[in-house]
């Protein structure tokens, strides 16, 4: 499999990268981990004449804890890093678990969170995880900077709000309040290297350890042209006392949101059944993590 010819740029600063991007517009692509864009170029689905590498840009591949209120994840942080970072696994578990389920080790060592989000595949692992955590994306161009909620970011398969002259710089996630717990479940036909058939990310917050549900976010992937939030199921749950029966009912409501397709990975009927089962399973897991919430050691 040969790569077509292109010009390669390796800017040493973010400003230079943004300037190149605005000069070349639609003819250029960012090269992060390359696990999507190089595959697409080999298959001749994408033909950029310029690749702009993020490799030399300082600070774009780091995770920064913001006191107690949140975390900023650089767009070029790899799935391998996210899946082993203690802060992420402890406080932002859906992202850490989703990262650990993305591809296989060789892919995770290169694949970045920014590439996963901008690529906007309906079955991507990190998209629903970021949606359940209500992440905010920082988009920058040579002249502008704006913040977009990840819940508004996806427009269709491969389509997002990002403009050709913009770069995703970082992802900010607020620290969930006390008595929060997260979960992420991915269903594929085999354990690794599998595009999901259905994936579910949940963040559940209790009013107190034995209290009712204060807030819950449920995001589903691979069930519609973009990952979706199961708002009806969320509304149904808030204010109620958690129980497995309640989570089962929520799962059934969750299916209402979805327009799954039939393909070689699974039929529509099977997918609907799995959405219901996995949503209630993820809610149970998130609840168990919520009642075991602990302050971080200082």
């Amino acid at each position, binding site marked *: 499999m040969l790569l077509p010819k292109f010009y*390669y740029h390796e800017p040493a600063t973010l400003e230079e990268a943004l300037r190149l991007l605005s000069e070349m517009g639609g003819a250029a692509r960012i090269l992060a981990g390359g696990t999507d864009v190089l595959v697409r170029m080999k298959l001749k689905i994408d033909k950029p004449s310029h690749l702009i590498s993020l490799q030399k840009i300082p600070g774009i591949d780091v995770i920064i804890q913001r006191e107690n209120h949140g975390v900023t994840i650089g767009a070029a942080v790899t799935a391998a890093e996210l899946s082993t970072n203690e802060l992420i696994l402890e406080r932002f578990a859906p992202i850490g678990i989703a990262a650990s389920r993305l591809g296989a080790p060789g*892919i995770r060592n290169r694949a970045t969170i920014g590439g996963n989000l901008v690529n906007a595949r309906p079955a991507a692992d990190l998209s629903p995880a970021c949606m359940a955590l209500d992440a905010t994306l920082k988009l920058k161009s040579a002249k502008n900077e704006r913040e977009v909620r990840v819940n508004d970011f996806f427009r269709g398969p491969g389509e997002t709000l990002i403009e050709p002259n913009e770069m995703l710089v970082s992802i900010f996630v607020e620290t969930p309040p006390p008595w929060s717990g997260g979960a992420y479940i991915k269903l594929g036909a085999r354990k690794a290297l599998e595009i999901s058939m259905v994936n579910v990310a949940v963040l559940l917050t209790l009013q107190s350890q034995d209290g009712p549900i204060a807030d819950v976010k449920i995001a589903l992937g691979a069930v519609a042209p973009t990952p979706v939030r199961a708002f009806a199921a969320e509304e149904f749950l808030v204010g109620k006392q958690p129980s497995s029966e309640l989570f089962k009912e929520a799962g059934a409501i969750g299916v209402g949101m979805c327009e799954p397709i039939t393909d070689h990975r699974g039929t529509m009927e099977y997918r609907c059944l799995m959405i219901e089962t996995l949503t209630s399973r993820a809610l149970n897991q998130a609840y168990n993590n919520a009642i075991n919430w602990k302050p971080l050691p200082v």
Partner: protein
Amino acid sequence: MKRIIKLTINGKPVETAVSPNQTLLQFLRDDMNLTGTKHGCGLGDCGACTVILDGKAVNSCLVLAIQADNSEILTIEGLAQDGKLHPIQQSFVDKGAIQCGFCTPGMILSAKALLDQKPNPSELEIRTALSGNLCRCTGYQKIVEAIGEAAEVIRMREES
């Protein structure tokens, strides 16, 4: 336009010109004559092209040679020392974990990256480390066993 890259391959410094559209895999096989690294799918699916780049297992078919500038690469050719096979290689031979051998370099480098991080892995950790490496011949069982045994040999060697 070609560019000069400087890197270390199997402990030897290399300085050479590469084209932007050359993958690390093509560079190793065609320019460096290191044909132990195999070209299977070219799309990240099979793991035959696995090499270790700065300590991490990567699919060299999805890395540009130019991106390997200033890096350290380990390929299957760099494992044996003074004509003696590395313990992982030796236990693949002893255990019969090799049939046609096409997946073997990638398997062994994925295993090496694992054992460098986790000298005493569980069977699940071994299977996870190999989850991006396909084998059409062996059925994996003997490969998993060979890696478990190699881990023991390496641990014993380091204790003594």
